[in-house]
């Protein structure tokens, strides 16, 4: 088990290194000069050059890279061109918003997907299965921003039950905070619920067709135990992959959702930073997203090892 996790950790470090190089280069391949973007349109070439030197763009690429990475490993992601403050501080301010929405969305997705996926498989071909199939198709097909707009229209504009957007941290009171977060979380959560439901359904069906299920039935194991213990735990392994990736995407900041619901999260920050060619901010955000993705995968691998004894060796 320890060996397995150690191996995964080494892979993780390699992936992060590769990703950092890639991020650095891709950001610099974007057309547009940040120094120009930061200046007024009547700036002289000398002023622009001075700005380039001030933000370190005159250095050779490799030197810029090592300055950035050297800082990153100590937690210093550089200064944002646009906000003129530390990137790490900006992210630290925005990250809790995205994490909060993502966790609530994930909880909603799981609360829907687990019973829906299991019951669809249990009653395959029956009315429940068809109902969930239709609902899931709608969930998959309907863009999140569209669902978000409709829900704002219904719950905020027509009914006036919930605020149309904005964010309140948990410290402002759980009721107020939840009122702000529930619409974006539902919009995101139902979309992921649909994918995970379909995934869970098909892996449940696969497991339910296996011989060890027939053997358990042959020896009088109650159907409920067969579904929730024998089949579910085996079906969870492939489903976790889908769920893990979904969570990665959620954390990467659902850009559109955050823009629509006016949430000050990472997605919106990324969107703004790309528009203004804010290299350090884009790099910092993308690096953080990659790190989160890799960490989630690492967490998934550890979870597989707990769920499936065959992986532990």
């Amino acid at each position, binding site marked *: 088990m320890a060996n397995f996790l150690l191996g995964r950790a080494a892979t993780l470090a390699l992936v992060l290194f590769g990703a950092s190089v890639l991020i650095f280069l891709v950001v610099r391949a974007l057309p547009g000069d940040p120094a120009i973007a930061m200046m007024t349109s009547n700036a002289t070439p000398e002023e622009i050059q001075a700005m380039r030197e001030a933000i370190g763009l005159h250095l050779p690429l490799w030197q810029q890279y090592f300055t950035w990475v050297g800082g990153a490993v100590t937690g210093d992601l550089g200064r944002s061109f646009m906000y003129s403050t530390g990137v790490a501080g900006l992210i630290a301010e925005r990250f809790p918003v995205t994490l909060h929405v993502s966790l609530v969305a994930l909880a909603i997705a799981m609360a829907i997907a687990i019973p829906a996926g299991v019951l669809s498989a249990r009653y395959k071909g029956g009315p429940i299965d068809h109902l969930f199939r239709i609902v899931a198709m709608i969930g998959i097909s309907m863009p999140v921003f569209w669902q978000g707009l409709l829900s704002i229209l219904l719950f905020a504009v027509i009914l006036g039950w919930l605020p149309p957007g904005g964010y309140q941290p948990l410290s402002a009171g759980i009721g107020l905070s939840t009122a702000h977060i529930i619409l974006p979380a539902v919009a995101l959560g139902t979309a992921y619920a649909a994918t995970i439901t379909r995934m869970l359904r098909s892996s449940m069906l696969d497991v339910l067709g296996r011989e060890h299920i027939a*053997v358990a039935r042959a020896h009088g194991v109650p159907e409920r135990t067969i579904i929730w213990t024998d089949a579910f735990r085996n079906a969870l392994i492939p489903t976790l992959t889908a769920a893990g990736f979904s969570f990665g995407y959620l954390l990467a900041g659902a850009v559109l959702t955050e823009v629509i619901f006016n949430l000050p999260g990472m997605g919106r920050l990324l969107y703004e930073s790309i528009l203004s060619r804010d290299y350090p901010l884009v790099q910092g955000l993308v690096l953080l997203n990659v790190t989160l993705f890799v960490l989630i995968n690492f967490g998934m691998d550890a979870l597989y090892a707990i769920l499936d004894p065959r992986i532990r060796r």
Partner: protein
Amino acid sequence: MPEMLFEVRDLVTRFRSEGGEIRPSRGVSFHIAAGEVLGLVGESGSGKSVTARASVRLQQPESATIGGELFFRGQDLRKLDAEALRALRAKQIAMVVQDPAAALNPVMTIGDQLFRIHRLHGGSESEARAAALSLLTRMRIAEAESRLSAYPHQLSGGMRQRVLIALALICRPSLLIADEPTTALDVTVEAEILALLDELRRELGMAMLMISHNLSVIGRICDRVAVMYAGRIMEEGPTQALLTSPRHPYTRALLASVPRGTKADGPLPAIPGEPPDLARLPPGCPFQARCPGAEARCTEDQPLRDIAPGRKAACWRAEAA
């Protein structure tokens, strides 16, 4: 005459497939006395596995069984509700299957799988543990104690098959459905497992429905044999008599294609033609297209009938043979 344990009358199963409706069991009848071993033999696709599972209501979906009566100790299994049926599982009727790698839950330890079956049918944790340990030891599994905490993937194929048998026998059932229990094993392990199974069966006084396509396996441990082809039983009789003087042309063809182990015999005679398409069976005897002695009346239905004391065959010319 020993007590009648299990009697199947006119079992019919039905599935829908791409080629149309198929009936893996088309009016199958057989009976097993207490402590008796009945072999169900036939080629792949003859319907023997579906028939055996459906006979104890283990075929999924259950709606595939559309006709027949299944008397176990005088009680029709088809009339029992799910709860009553479940109470019979493991304690009265158990099952061993072909592929031990797929038949054990990969994420549960051997011990947990054994204990829970024992506990489901009454008994404490410590009783379950004791029963599992003594059975594994009885199955000649070395270091049984430590095997209990092993996962299936940590055991060899032969070891897994022993565990699977232990799982079936832990509640001392009176009927075991053994669905090709040794097919996935190599020959030496097969012989060992068969001998062990037979020994335990005698000890428990357990009856067995042994499904196999392997006549030498059948010959070794069965009291009687039923030969199945295209969803029907073609011939039935005591093992020795049936194997030495088969009455149905299909049984004869099947016996002729068994290798005897000497090269001097020349090439093995294969049964000419192909197994029939189950979705498009001709009227009458399903073997007629491949039968060397087929005649006009073979297109009429020929039910399984008594041809000699204890022997039945479904062929017009069974007596002539």
